[in-house]
């Protein structure tokens, strides 16, 4: 069970949160004109990296904010959390 530092509420246990998957993949520009492949890319294709992962979480049982977490998918270590609109922190090397 992860310990997630909500950028608003502080460290809370994972069961208070809802996971939102990979962060920062964006709809294609002019998405209504995007090709089926580009659209499928947005809808379904994911980096799913073995290593550092930028991901989305919502503090559903707490402040109900969505925010971002940089977490390692092997060690589960969390290197940083940030709010919507914050500059992206670097991934640890």
């Amino acid at each position, binding site marked *: 069970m992860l310990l997630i530092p909500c950028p*608003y509420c502080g460290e809370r246990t994972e069961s208070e949160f809802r996971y939102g998957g990979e962060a920062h993949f964006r709809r294609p520009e002019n998405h209504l004109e995007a090709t089926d492949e580009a659209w499928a890319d947005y809808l379904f294709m994911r980096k799913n990296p073995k290593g550092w992962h930028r991901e989305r979480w919502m503090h559903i049982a707490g*402040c109900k904010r969505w925010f971002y977490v940089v977490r390692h998918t092997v060690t589960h270590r969390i290197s940083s959390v940030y709010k919507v609109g914050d500059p992206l922190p670097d991934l640890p090397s």
Partner: protein
Amino acid sequence: MTDECAPLDNVLRPGAPSGPSGVALSDRRFVGQINLRGRGEAVTAVGAALGYALPVEANTTVGSGVSRACWLGPDEWLLICEDDQRAELKKRLDDALAGHAYAATDVTDSRAVLRIAGACARPVLAKGCPLDLSARSFGVGHVAQSLVGRAQAMILPIEGGGYDLFVARSFAGYLWTWLLDAGAEYGIRVQT
């Protein structure tokens, strides 16, 4: 007015187990609750109407006189007051916020408020609440939303030890049963 029915009126059965009781459980029935959402200047404007600034520090609560504001999120507060004060409180908010974008919603009936008090209130709550409840980190002046068992709840420590648990109305029966069951170990008394 018609008959009012608090969330637990049909669950609550006084006369719980006898013996030494380390915890007392009670239903606060109706606690006036207004959910307030807004940002920027609206927040300042509310301060003027309430007579105190809304708490902006996470998980804290500020109150004076008739109302208390509990931080719920960066743009969200729960204002609590006596049940019969809420219309007036809401009006004050609406007046103060006229012209701002905000949402002040009476949610009094949305939540039941259960109170557990007594020397063993903390270990009873700790059976299902993942928060660090030690007085070091969570005492009067704090408030937090978290889980109790499988219910979400807003937890407000009270003077003299114990907590008010604000829980969605439909979960109140579950939480009540849960607390009675959790408290059995310490002896639990139902206060009516």
